[in-house]
């Protein structure tokens, strides 16, 4: 009777293991989008849905980069103009403009971007730390620089920093 504990590798199990190893290597999936001529990206797991642009209800005393609030499936969520937040010159919303609904600390937020590109898979080693010269207030929004291909550069955003802001007290 053969020993049950010994499993011989077949061609199938070999390929299966290899594919898993490949998947593990490309462990990062990000959604890339356009903003002021540059390409940015956010971890795909943080994105709940993508909406067409719609008018938001203005919230008084909120920072200028908060466009207001919108209703999504019965939930009221704030919408941030990502251009203003990362200090790219403001531009009116266009046909390709989208609102990315992201979740952070259990709450949903909308981020207005110029256009959504695609889901990009990357290995951990494709991500560089943020360049030191990008200090200052904008630097803290950048989690790293992704280089899925030598000729492509994605600015990976740090949601926690983007979404932490305060409102003016009267």
């Amino acid at each position, binding site marked *: 009777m053969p020993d049950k504990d010994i499993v011989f590798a077949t061609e199938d199990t070999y390929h299966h293991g290899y594919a898993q190893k490949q998947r593990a290597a490309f462990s990062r999936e990000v959604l890339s989008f356009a903003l002021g001529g540059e390409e940015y990206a956010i971890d795909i797991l943080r994105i709940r849905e993508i909406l067409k642009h*719609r008018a938001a*209800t203005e919230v008084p005393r909120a920072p200028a980069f908060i466009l207001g609030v919108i*209703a999504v499936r019965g*939930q009221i969520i704030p919408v941030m103009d990502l251009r203003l937040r990362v200090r790219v010159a403001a531009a009116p919303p266009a046909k390709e403009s989208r609102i990315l609904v992201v979740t952070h600390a259990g709450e949903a937020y909308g981020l207005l971007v110029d256009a959504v590109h695609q889901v990009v898979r990357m290995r951990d080693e494709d991500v560089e730390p943020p360049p030191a010269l990008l200090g200052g207030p904008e630097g803290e929004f950048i989690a790293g620089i992704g280089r899925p291909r030598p000729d492509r550069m994605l600015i990976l955003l740090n949601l926690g920093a983007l979404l932490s802001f305060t409102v003016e007290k*009267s």
Partner: protein
Amino acid sequence: MTSDKAFQDFLSEAQETVENLNRTLLALDAGKVDPDLVNDAFRAVHSLKGLAGLFGVGRMASLSHTLENLLDSLRLGRVAVSAAILDLLFEAVEIYGRLMAAVSEGRPADSPEVDGFVARIEQAARAGARAQTQKRQDLALDPSILSVLSEYEEHRLRENLAAGRTLFRVHAAFDLAGIDHGLDELKARLKPLGEVITYLPTPDSGDGEGIELDVILATDAHHPAVAGAVGGRAEVTELVAGRAPLAAATGARAEEDATLRSVSRTVRVDIRKLDHLMNLVGELTLARAGVQGVLEDLRGEGHLELARRLQQESRVLERKLDELQSGILEVRMVPLGQIFDKLSRVVRRISRDAGKEIRLTISGADTELDKLIVEELSDPLMHVIRNSIDHGIEPTDVRRAAGKDETGTIWVSAQQRGNHVVIEVRDDGRGFDEDRILETAIQRRLIDAAQAADLSRRELLNLVFLPGFSTRERASELSGRGVGLDVVKTNIARLSGIIDVESTRGKGTSLIITLPVTLAIIQALIIRAAGRSYAIPLNSVLETITATRGEVKTIERREVLTVRGQTLALARVEQALDVARAGPTPERMYVVVVGLAQHRLGLVVDDFVGQENIVIKSLSGPLNAVPGIAGATELGGQQVVLVLDVAALVEESLRGEEAA
């Protein structure tokens, strides 16, 4: 370890059990010693012991164990129910509360307190122990029955015989399949007559088909009444004749049975689940608005017959949605009695500590309010009562000297008026001293002497709600801790409520709290200002008036309007919120008069749009802190409007007034 949800369930079940225990103790405290009440208390503590053991809350288990022993002794008559014992039991309720609070916050349960308390209970039990002199043999009863009685049953038998009741044996036969139901039914028939001591299988039962039981009943009723109650289904024999005259059987016990049954039909629901259902109804309402839009399109394109049918269906849908909404609201409602019970306990303890005789009279305990409001109301109400006991009711000797009843009275009453509930806390104490109030307010620089001269009596009394006001030089142990009526006012305002005060020197003080029935879904006035729509909760709107620009005057650059001879401070919504207005303000203006507690403010708006039922949703993240905005609501067609926080706007306007 146990899961979080299971632990939450444990806490809520334990809390409910402790509340039941408290109610039982209050009933015991109010009337004569009813064995059923002692049994209820025993059962409550017993289940708390089980719960605590299950969830590893050792302190609570050992407390329950000691209490269980004490209550068992009370039940068996080994220890007499006395005021001292009741005090201990009430104290136990409070210790349970503290233990549960500690456990829910993840703190260790406070052990020295429990240990000391346990020792005191044991001591009290020893001190209260009755001598057990009687023997079983001295009872004139068939030894075959006597020998099988438990200690408790024997005690109850003895008590009933001592009370002069007659003892009957009710012999009944049941078939095996229906015995549970049959026995319950028989007991239910007998209970209104007296007390069922026990039921015993008879020696000659057991032919395989059925079972025969002897039920031993102690009652003031005579043979025909008992025989009538069982309706010929059982054989009734008198065992020991009683001394009592023919007494009418009371129906109270049967009623008690009915309520016991209804308890088992209730379910406990997390309030958040109800919030979720309420949100769903809100979304359904929006979906219906969408259907209405399609209907208009159909009509516009000439499909009149289709439009008519759709209109009919849509109306049915609307009606059912309304019913669903009010159904959910109804589920959220709980009687105020829940907190009134706690108040009785606090009054009992505090009045004793303060060395004052105080009677608490409660009415309207069945008035219902939203669960969340009731929860939040507990602290402010407790504080108002403490204030009455501490500052309102005079010491006994002072009352005697003033020719008043030595026992002070605090009345707590609640009643529903439309969409509001009015709760009044009134005492027959010394009342507010207007001169002292003025003196203190000036001394604390809350007002200056010139302002003081202009105050109406009502305004003067309302000074006590200002932060930093406290008429006593030294905060007392009871109402001290640096918390004043201003905190009460703030807490009530947070619930969109209003508090008012009336007081007559020497006669007493009355605090009147007006609250909305629910905050889950509210009626709101939709207004427009500076090209934007906003919602104002209708429960804070007192009236709406129209005015022209010419009628507006200014006092120290602040706009005011004279309404029926009174000065009303105005605030323009767009200015209060710092939003820009394109173009000039219109000549004709609308004023929404809002009230927060005793303050009034006129919000100037451009137009009224209408009235809507809305569900307020808070803004997420940092936006939650925007001053003047309570949240947002969806109005259909994906339109979101902000809901104004009337309390914050009024406070802001008051601050502006002080700064001016």
